[in-house]
């Protein structure tokens, strides 16, 4: 067997396990259309390493690229880039192939090194309502290359990933993607309250006793639905106000707490809430408890939102959408739980078995979380 082949065999064996050491080849293409204009402004960041491979920029072959080498190749770089991009405008029943006029050549640094920045103007002749982009940079030499397109029209932004398998994008200039984005954040918020079991359990520990009130003989049924509903309303409102407040503060970067404390405090809140149902300490004004602990839960929500990596202008949109979603999810839980609890409140099972057993299980569970969260994450 030839040695060359053997080496390849071993490459194959090792190949899969490690992820790439490098970011793959991506270019960043930004197109901006202003309303009422027949032009688009373009900025295209292409890795110098990629351009060197196709245009041989490193003329002295010393393994480094200087600005001089790049500047001297300006015409070749811009011509090459713009020859691999087509922009078509559609509007008012017309379609027109836009002319791409090169502008300045600059450089910029990305996470994996310097990129050439090609600025250009696409002159379309008509006012576009839709733009079609056909991208084929580097596809002939590198099948893994991708163009990351960011399209701005007014204050709406859309993103597409262009690859050899899907090299074209059709983007509506009129209808912004904002609504879709907002919708995404709302969905995220709903999911979080429904799947983030610690928030849900905390809410339940507050809801279950709302159909009862605590007297000398223990828990007894609340007389009217109105009283229960009022109790629930106060609790849910307090919880909502509190977590909205801290969620906003944390997301806007005004307050930051270590996540270990937050997660531990959330577990503690669930445990205390459940224990309070077992051996009530706070029986009146439970909305105060909901408010106090809601502040902590808000920080927990904020860490989820932070994980979505939202920046800049999307932040407020994200915050409002996500918080709205959390409230919707919460309302759904209330709507599902309250009628059942109210109907069942007279039964001995509800007061003597369901309430205490549920509270006991929840408090043990939450106590366990508390211990785990306090002991296993070593840094905040």
């Amino acid at each position, binding site marked *: *067997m030839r040695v060359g082949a*053997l*080496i*390849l*065999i*071993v*490459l*194959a*064996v*090792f190949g*899969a*396990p*490690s*992820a*790439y*050491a*490098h*970011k*793959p*080849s*991506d270019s*960043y293409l930004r197109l901006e259309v202003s309303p009422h204009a027949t032009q688009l402004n373009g*900025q295209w960041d292409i890795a110098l*390493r*990629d351009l*060197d491979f196709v245009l041989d920029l490193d003329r002295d*072959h010393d393994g*480094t*690229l*200087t*600005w*001089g080498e790049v*500047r001297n190749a300006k015409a070749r770089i811009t011509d090459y880039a713009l020859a691999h991009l087509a922009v078509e405008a559609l509007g008012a029943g017309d379609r027109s192939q836009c002319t791409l006029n090169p502008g300045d050549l600059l*450089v910029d640094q990305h*996470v*994996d*090194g310097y990129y050439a920045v090609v600025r250009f103007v696409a002159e379309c002749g008509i006012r576009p309502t839709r733009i079609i982009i056909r991208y084929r940079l580097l*596809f002939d*030499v*590198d099948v*893994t290359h991708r163009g990351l397109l960011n399209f701005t029209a007014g204050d709406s*932004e*859309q*993103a597409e*990933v262009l690859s050899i398998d899907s090299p074209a994008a059709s983007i509506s200039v009129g209808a912004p*993607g904002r609504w879709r984005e907002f919708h995404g954040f709302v969905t*995220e918020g709903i*999911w979080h309250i429904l799947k*983030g*079991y610690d928030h*849900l359990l905390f809410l339940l520990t507050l809801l279950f006793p709302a159909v009862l009130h605590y007297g000398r003989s223990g828990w007894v049924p609340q007389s009217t639905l109105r009283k229960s509903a009022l109790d629930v309303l106060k609790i849910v409102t307090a919880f909502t106000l509190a977590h909205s407040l801290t969620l906003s503060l944390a997301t806007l970067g005004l307050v930051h707490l270590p996540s270990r404390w937050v997660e531990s405090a959330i577990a503690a809140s669930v445990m205390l809430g459940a224990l309070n149902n077992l051996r009530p300490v706070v029986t009146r004004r439970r909305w105060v408890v909901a408010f106090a602990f809601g502040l902590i839960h808000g920080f927990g929500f904020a860490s989820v939102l932070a994980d979505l*990596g939202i*920046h*800049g*202008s*999307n932040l407020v949109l994200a915050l409002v959408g996500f918080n709205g979603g959390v409230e919707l999810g919460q309302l759904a839980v209330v709507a599902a739980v309250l009628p059942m609890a109210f109907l069942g409140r007279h039964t001995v099972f509800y007061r003597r078995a369901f309430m205490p057993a*549920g509270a006991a299980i929840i408090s043990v*569970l939450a106590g366990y979380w508390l211990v*785990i969260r306090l002991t*296993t994450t070593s840094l905040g």
Partner: protein
Amino acid sequence: MIADLWSVRPCGIFRTAAFLLLASSSWTAIGTPFVPADDEAVLARLPARQALQGLAPLRVAVAERREDLPTALDLARGYIAIGRREGDPRFVGYAEAVLTPWLARTPVPEPALVLKATALQYRHRFDESLAVLDRAIALEPLDGQAWLTKAALLELRGDFAEARRACAHLTRASDQILALTCLASVNSRNGQLVASHEALLSVSAETARLPSAIRGWSESVLADMAERLGRDEEADAELRDAISALPDDPYLKAARADLLLRLGRPEEAIALTREYESHDSLLLRLAIAGQRAHSPDARRWAAAYEDRLEAAVRAHDSTHTREHALFLLDVRHDARGALAVAADNWHVQRQREPTDLRVYLRTAQLAASRPDLDEINRYLSSTGYEDRNLRADVRYPASGRP
């Protein structure tokens, strides 16, 4: 109700949503473009430039002689080798572009299929890679390279019976030592760790005559077995030998760095990987080791790795799930976030190497996720997978099992 609560966990929908949101959010990574003041300002170092220069004659030849398959294959192999050494996927893309016209032919040349499969495997397109390999094997049932690539893929996914079958074909198709190493590696993860270790050790003297690539591979397999047998010093010695056989190999360095980190020797892990910040997977190890050793560079490494991770997520690149989970767990100490990614890595990406299992188990334990622990236990008992470090750690959360 309570039982149900155990089974809910942050699931894939989170990541999908995050993906979509990220993709549509404005990118802040882009700074302000500028015109450098000085013509001599160095903008890029091209580490692979010399290697690429070496391939230049082949590149010219391929462009000129469109009917010359061996030259095209040599060029593609050359690109893949650079990509592996530099850990840079663009070279794999170059290789595939060279192969593209050949893959469109009928009949399609079998070696082009095998190389295509190798490239797909690098890009973590495992299903496609397997399909292409099967086409190659149908054309050339005695191609050892095709069988070994297939075995490696199946082993990665934890499909041991099929992997063994592929290894067995190597006995006829290729070198006996290769077949034995292949089988030992698969069997060691499938209930026969001790016997496989002994078998491979007994022939290890013979590997000395083989090219360094094979030797390095064999030693890395021995190291993996030794580590799972609880013989950490032996594993470290094998890995050191493997690294001296293949000094440019980033995978071996990552494996040794992981071992050193587990043994509480972060300073040595830093010394091993310090020069390789440009490699994402090694930069991650630096970030972990730096934090543990309280290195002054720790924050910079962590931030740099996070930047690259964000860039990957933004580009819908899902090849980083293992590293992403390790980063969340060992740098950010976010067990729940890490579990979501580790579970995705295990179930969706289906990466099932020892490293994948370790990170999945650690996150599942920290996040006290009963369904994930159940899944892992099912996997361990159904495959007979052994790892002394791991077994000792598998336990249920105290309140998890009534």
